[in-house]
């Protein structure tokens, strides 16, 4: 419940403040958001599996974000930033889909 409220509050704060993304963070923010989404779905799945642990969630959330940003940063330094961010998005997308499928099986039995 608090998680949902947090999500809404965060979105509202973002809507009202309309902050500009610092140029340094611009390439990494979209990847970080996708990684955080992945962590969120993973957490939801763990909750339904009955193995949810807030410590694990926090660590996976943060590490997901940091690793995704690092990979893109590394790709930028190597000159393959575009391709690598595509790769990260694909991998995270697949994970989100499989997590969503697990959640669906838990809730809908289908």
């Amino acid at each position, binding site marked *: 419940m608090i998680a949902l409220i*947090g*999500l809404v509050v965060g979105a509202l*704060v*973002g*809507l009202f403040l309309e902050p500009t993304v610092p140029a340094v963070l611009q390439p990494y923010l*979209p990847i970080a*958001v996708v990684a955080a989404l992945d962590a969120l779905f993973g957490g939801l799945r763990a909750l339904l599996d009955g193995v949810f642990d*807030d410590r694990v969630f926090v660590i996976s959330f943060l590490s997901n974000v940091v690793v995704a940003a690092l990979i893109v940063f590394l790709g930028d330094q190597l000159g393959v*930033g575009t391709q690598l961010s595509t790769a990260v998005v694909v991998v995270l997308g697949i994970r989100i889909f499989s997590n969503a499928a697990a959640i669906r099986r838990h809730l809908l*039995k289908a």
Partner: protein
Amino acid sequence: MTPDHLQRQAEPRSAWRTLARSFAPHASRGQVITGLLCALLGFALVVQVQANRSEGLSSLRQNELVRILDEVTRRAEELQTQVTDLRAQRTELVTGSDTERAAREAAAARAEVQGILAGELPAVGPGVELIIREPDQPIPAPVLYNVLEELRNAGAEAIQVGDQRLTASSYFIDTPDGVQVDGVLLSPPYRWLAIGDPDTVTTALSIPGGALATVRNAGGSTGLSSLDEVQVTAVRVVERPRYATPAPAIDGG
């Protein structure tokens, strides 16, 4: 029933219950941290969406910008080529329409000249007005035709008598009622209008033994006056020739 089936029946309730239980607000440390992270996620999500919507090129990488620049440059070159082509085409069309317009104007001028000569168009210009009265006896048609011939000889370009335009095919005949011109009965006095050089026409008509003398011999009286502007307003509808067609132009002649 198999154990598997039992489990399947039991599970949905437990899954939804797990969800409901965890949604129930109880301020544990885990809930608060999760809420914080979710707030962070929502914030970042919205910020990124807005940035993506508002900022076009500034969020792109260098190689993407180079690619876009290349595309724009190539597109501009294509458009430039197109502009050159279209300019050339336009010049061609303008020249073509100029030529066409000149031809059309020449044709219109020719049509005017021939319309005046054939009696199709009203005409205006310097000329003479000749009024022939017949006090006693009717003037025979050949006498009037003689006047027409004399006017032609003197170079009159457009002639009308009464309200009849006289052309190359005009004729005068005597009928019991009077003189007919081109099938229309004329009634005296005969008012002639002729466009031509007034001096030449006047001289030609009044020479001794000429057209006017013949009219007077036939018992008519004449009144001739030179005018700066004569308006020949009568027109003749020219029918298409039924048998004659234009002969093919002879080359090298």
